[in-house]
């Protein structure tokens, strides 16, 4: 779809088309965020033997998040007097923009993909790092010790866990011989990388939960220690932007996990009559469910445990995975 548009001659109509496609994707993501929050609250509720939201919008609380968002948008927008005004205003934008930018490289189905970049995987990791700057800027500009502590924790955590995250996917890159996400999906036509790289999947899942700042790695916004972390001083739609960035990353990270380890839109053998979009949706939803499940199950780590776990357990395991993968590839090549 996009490929045809990219190859057509430039015109105002084509530019408008690109804009419309972008807006449509934004709407899809916003819809996901709305119902991901509801799903999270519902699943958490069931796991803790509660009902979860069940008042607004029927028995299942289908309009609960919509009402919450409406409330957020109507809230008074406060900026603390001693805050650094320009930075305070721009920080949520810096945090959110990369979250939407990374979606561009994710091939959702065979036909719905936006940019087919040669270094797609690296692009995702590089761009998502910019969000940390937004979080740090927000925490610093708030001029609040809890916000600063939260943002420092967030930056330390993101740097520490980005390394095992990158190292764990090197095995896949070695097996595929490409950083292009479309090539990675094509490589998994018969066997998904989940079965070829189980150790990498394990490391990737842990590191991605840490990158998303979700429980058990939610130290940056540990409610019981830091009030709310880096966004203490934010309210209204600025706060909503930080929250939105977090859930858009959930969308992007779950998509990336699906693409890298579960074969993206590729069907399970003998079931190819079911369209790719359905397969992607099923795999994607199960990844999101696992993320919520992890949140309901594990207690929060301590800051020192977090660091030593990242550097002393995950990183050596990721290196071991690369080592084993290269040995296996060489053995296969020599026979």
């Amino acid at each position, binding site marked *: 779809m996009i490929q045809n548009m990219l190859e057509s001659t430039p015109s105002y109509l084509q530019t408008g088309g690109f804009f419309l496609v972008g807006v449509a994707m934004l709407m899809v993501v916003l819809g996901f965020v709305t119902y991901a929050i509801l799903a999270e609250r519902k699943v958490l509720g069931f796991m803790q033997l509660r009902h979860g939201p069940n008042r607004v919008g029927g028995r299942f609380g289908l309009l609960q998040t919509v009402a919450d968002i409406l409330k957020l948008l109507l809230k008074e927008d406060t900026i603390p007097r001693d805050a650094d005004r320009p*930075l305070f205003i721009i920080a949520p934008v810096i945090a959110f923009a990369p979250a939407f930018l990374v979606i561009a490289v994710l091939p959702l189905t065979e036909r719905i993909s936006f940019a087919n*970049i040669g*270094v797609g995987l690296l692009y995702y990791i590089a761009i998502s790092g910019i969000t940390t700057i937004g979080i740090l800027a927000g925490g*610093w500009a708030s001029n609040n010790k809890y916000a600063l502590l939260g943002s420092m924790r967030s930056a330390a955590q993101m740097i520490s866990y980005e390394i095992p995250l990158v190292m764990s996917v090197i095995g896949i890159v070695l097996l595929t011989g490409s950083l292009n996400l479309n090539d990675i999906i094509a490589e998994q036509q018969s066997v998904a990388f989940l079965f070829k790289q189980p150790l990498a999947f394990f490391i990737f899942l842990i590191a991605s939960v840490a990158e998303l700042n979700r429980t058990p790695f939610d130290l940056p916004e540990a409610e019981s220690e830091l009030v709310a972390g880096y966004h203490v001083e934010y309210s209204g739609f600025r706060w909503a932007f930080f929250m939105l960035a977090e859930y858009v990353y959930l969308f992007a990270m779950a998509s990336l996990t699906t693409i890298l380890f579960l074969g993206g839109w590729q069907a399970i053998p003998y079931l190819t009559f079911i369209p790719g979009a359905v397969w992607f949706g099923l795999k994607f939803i199960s990844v999101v469910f696992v993320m919520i499940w992890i949140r309901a199950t594990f207690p929060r780590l301590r800051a020192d445990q977090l660091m030593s776990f990242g550097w002393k357990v995950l990183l050596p395991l990721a290196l071991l995975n690369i080592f084993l993968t290269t040995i296996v590839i060489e053995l296969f090549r020599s026979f």
Partner: protein
Amino acid sequence: MTGELLVFIVLFLITITGGLLMLNLTKVIHMMMALVLTFLGIAGFYIMLSAEFVAVVQILIYSGAITIIMLFGIMLTKHTEAEPKTGWAKKGVVFTGIVLFFLIMFKGIRTISLGPQADDLHVNNTEQIGIMLYTDYVIPFELVSVVLLVALVGAVVLAKKDEKDEKEGEQS
């Protein structure tokens, strides 16, 4: 005006604006933000030159890692202090230096010939870089890794020394 020129002008404006803001802002953290803007602009230039791998690594290393480490340094040392303004005499000397540098560079660049432009660089860009690194440039590449290792060992030594001092301090 071609599309390429338009993109170049936009990226040029972003990069130069970042640089100028970096020099003119007074708070250190604002300077860092301006620096990020410059790094991103430079990454855009790399994409224009069909060096997509270098562009992404530029964002990953400079805009991501190095900036955050610098921010750490800044936040853990100064908090609200702003830099003092420099005097006019010093500014004049610096300005003359810049003008001289510009004239020399301009004279040197004007007649330079870069040879025919390579137009197949974007084909398997990452693979080409990898092959070059591990064949023609393997010795410099290994030397760089030795330098990194030395830096790593140095950091460990420094960190260890601090810890020992603290323990001694506690005992005495």
